[in-house]
């Protein structure tokens, strides 16, 4: 069953068609990677799916529901989590407070003006458990801006996951990371997304081929190929458009 589907989605940035008739199908439970050269429309596709933009044409379906016009918070409430290409955490809040925000959202606590948050024990416990799971318990009380780049990145990924979504959209989780950090981040993604549908934009081919069950290749806003990593690696069109550029 497809948990997420786009039907003939096109998006027009004042004359530049960033997406053209994209039919993306994400199956429930799979790890799906979206790859493609710079400017291929990957992030635009993410923005259309997660509610940042309403596509110029076409429709988006999530869990069988038409969510073409849904706003980001609607998508999150329906069960979608997202991380950004440029790290998007709360810089002045501590790692603990960052994660706690996601935990509050997951519990549906939005307009509670009557209880001190520090006294809500189960929330503190859950947040601490998450921090421990992502090895950030040592940095619990540091502001996110004081964390290393890699750790801030993991913080964001786990924030996206802490709302307990059914599907996670990760926009280049390893962008700008060192070799070691990439390795840690990939392990983190693998561990945290166990059993969840994951859509991931990635540039690092090692990461893609080790993580993904299926790959979609975008090129000039169009889908060039869809398939298992092996098929994609052998696909001539993909090699010409993209993989060929990165001859080892």
């Amino acid at each position: 069953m497809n948990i997420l589907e786009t039907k003939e989605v096109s998006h027009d940035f004042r004359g530049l068609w960033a997406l053209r008739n994209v039919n993306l199908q994400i199956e429930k439970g799979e790890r799906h990677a979206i790859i493609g050269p710079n400017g291929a429309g990957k992030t635009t596709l993410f923005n259309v799916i997660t509610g940042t933009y309403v596509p110029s044409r076409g429709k988006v379906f999530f869990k069988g529901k038409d969510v073409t016009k849904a706003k980001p918070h609607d998508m999150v409430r329906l069960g979608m989590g997202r991380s950004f290409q440029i790290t998007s955490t709360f810089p002045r809040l501590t790692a603990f407070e960052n994660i706690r925000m996601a935990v509050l959202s997951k519990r549906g606590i939005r307009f509670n003006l009557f209880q001190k948050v520090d006294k809500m024990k189960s929330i503190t416990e859950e947040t601490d458990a998450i921090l421990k799971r992502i090895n950030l318990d040592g940095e619990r009380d540091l502001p996110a801006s004081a964390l290393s780049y890699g750790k801030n990145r993991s913080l964001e990924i786990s924030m996206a996951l802490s709302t307990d979504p059914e599907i996670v959209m990760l926009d280049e989780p390893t962008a700008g990371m060192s070799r070691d950090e990439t390795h840690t981040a990939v392990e983190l993604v693998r561990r945290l997304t166990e059993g969840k549908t994951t859509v991931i934009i990635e540039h690092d081919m090692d990461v893609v081929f080790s993580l993904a069950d299926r790959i979609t290749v975008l090129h000039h806003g169009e889908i060039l190929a869809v398939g298992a990593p092996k098929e994609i690696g052998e696909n001539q069109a993909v090699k010409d458009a993209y993989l060929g550029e990165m001859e080892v």
Partner: protein
Amino acid sequence: MNKKTKWILWGVFLIFLIVYPLVFGIYYTNVFVTFTIAALFSVSVNMLLGFTGFLSFGHAMFFGAGAYGTAIALAHIKGLPLLISVFIGFMSAVLLALILAPLVVRLSVTAFAMIHMAFGMLMYTLALKLRNITGGEDGIGGFPIPSFGVPGIFSIDMTDPTNFYYFAMAIIGFTLWILWFITKTPFGCLMVGIRDNAKRIDYLGFKLPQTKGVVYLIAGGCCGIAGSIFALFQNLISAYELHIMHSFTPIMMIMVGGVGSYFGPILGAGIFTMLGELTTRYTERVELVIGLILIAVIMYFPLGCIGFYHYLKTKYLKRKAA
């Protein structure tokens, strides 16, 4: 600091508040009331500026709404109880906030600041022109100040400065406590989150405009309470309270005291009141002194006094560790 010392300190503070008018006399009692009104005003504005990240150049209109609400109600309704008159002031500010909220919560930070300047000036002009309601430049004065009490059982005369001092302390203290409490709730976390990264808040499943709207109502309403107490205190309210300069005052207090901390604006209000008292002894150019101090603060400690304190503290801790 453990819980016990905290309670003892609060107890000492409470006793200080109680004996203050007996020790310092009527003049300084009135100065203290002026200070607490300014403190509540700037703490309310800081709920928007420091906690949620929205600068408003027009919050005097909420202060004015509260003040005019109370004054007009008292001038026209005979035998209106004191607390109800404060409540009317509060509600008129909330009403004004409710009218503006749907528009302003969708604006960017800059547009938010500018549109408040425009609305603030509009309210000021309205107060000047609608002479038969607001009294124009003369304002509304000499309205009866009701006594506090239960009819037939007891009644406390509120025209007595000491009695009024206790009443103002109770209302303002209670409102300040509520605002402080709100910053500690999950909703308070959300406010700080919007300041830090509004996009992330949206992508965590929180509705941005609605959340901002609630903060806006709270901040507006509490400015209204400050205005209402001000009207009762002065027994006179004029269009000046709506003037844009009066919107800048809390912002300056917040900047000097410390933006983003709850107690910063209170400290700033205290500093401004004291400076005003001290400088008027020597010169009438109070604004000059305050302006120079504001420039110095912005240049040397952009995070205000509280920020400077934290800076010194981390420096001290570092030296201790080394």
